[in-house]
């Protein structure tokens, strides 16, 4: 089986040989141990770091960027994104602040990825002229 490693921008092509019982016989093409780990992971349990936004009140911007602090199962990403729609957090926030603990039972936390101060003015919202 062939993979392209997505760990770093080098994008190494990785070749995985499987035996009759679908067990890994050999892995070639990876230039580092991260690539080996990626290929093994991708075969058994594809996972990705998830990034999205949540609503922010009291800050100078309307949305706060967030991410999962570890890779989460690929199948859950859409569901995860949907579950964040309902959320709203209040400024000030700091990088690393936990928004959701153990999201969908994955052991990953959703954490803030931007420092946003509290703002006296109201959050900028778009006004659509009628």
């Amino acid at each position: 089986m062939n993979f392209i490693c997505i760990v770093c921008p080098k994008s190494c092509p990785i070749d995985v040989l499987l035996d009759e019982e679908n067990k890994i016989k050999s892995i070639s093409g990876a230039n580092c141990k991260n690539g080996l780990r990626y290929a093994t992971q991708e075969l058994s349990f594809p996972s990705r770091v998830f990034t999205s936004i949540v609503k922010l009140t009291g800050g100078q911007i309307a949305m706060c960027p967030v991410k999962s602090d570890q890779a989460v199962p690929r199948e859950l990403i859409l569901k995860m994104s949907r579950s964040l729609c309902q959320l709203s957090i209040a400024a000030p926030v700091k990088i690393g602040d936990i928004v959701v603990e153990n999201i969908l039972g994955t052991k990953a936390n959703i954490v803030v990825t931007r420092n946003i101060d509290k703002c006296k003015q109201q959050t900028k919202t778009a006004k659509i002229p009628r």
Partner: protein
Amino acid sequence: MSKKAQLLKRQAHKGHVSIIGAGPAGLIAALHIKKNAPSTKVTVIDREIFVGGILNQCIHPGFGLLEFGQELTGPEYAAKVSALCRDFEIEFLTETSVLSINKKLEVVALSPKYGAKKFQSKAIVLCTGCRERSRGALHIPGDRPSGIMTAGLAQKFINIDGLVPGSRVAILGSGDIGAIMARRLTLQGVEVAAVIEIKKSLSARPRNVIQCIVDFQIPIYLEHTITKIVGRERLEKIKVAKILSDGRADFSTEFEISCDTLLLSVGLIPENELAEMAGVALDAKSNGVIVDEKFMSSIPGIFACGNAMKIYDLVDHLSEDSKKAGESVAAYLTAPLVEGKQV
């Protein structure tokens, strides 16, 4: 040291550097100027409220693997670099637009806080970044409804302002921003109907193709282009056709894709209106500032780095070069004077 030599040395050190643009290039150049020439006054000017430039809207991971050895998102990378800047005395003028620069190294800037301001600089560093190619540059025939925008603009709408641009989107071009927006839109509940690419393969990096397009099973049309845009007020549909080997569209293969939004991800152009105004030589093909090995442009004292000089794929490479640019600006400012001229 004679009195005259002392005086000359002091003058050389008493430089004031204006850096235009507080994106990664500007911040890192400022950092390394200050590191290597501590007595220099460094002013970083940016028209936005926040420093960090485009990084702030690039909320996806993949930054900083080479520079910091860990995978960061755009805002985290920006925060890391601006935290490094905080250790030095660097002046930041945000919400300030530079109106013009000239050969005498004067900078005219405008801000709601200070009004118009003029700086006499010893050196100017252009870190003005780039713009996306827009519909006007592509000559797509058809109507001119609303709902057609560049991928980066849609990225800002969603990630910063929380505004979703439409409900069914087609993306023309398969650059990295286009691929990343295909994923962002899908995650925000928007249907991505197609990614249309004129070439034989997608132009985004393989890791973005896998994580953003393949993972979410987004339909890809290779060797296709848009032949017509249809819509009165709002975009209604686009007509798409296969490309013949000579580059023309094969109209017998034309089909329709209904969508209310079209994103363009068809390349970046260095933004160099200010450089042009001052008479800095630009590359005719890429529109980037032509620089020598010291990152100096055709005008002595005006330097350029970052996307304003050439388009980078990775911020880590940009940071590496901007560091070199900062160091050579510092060397230029601290160089001894010969007959009143800097060498």
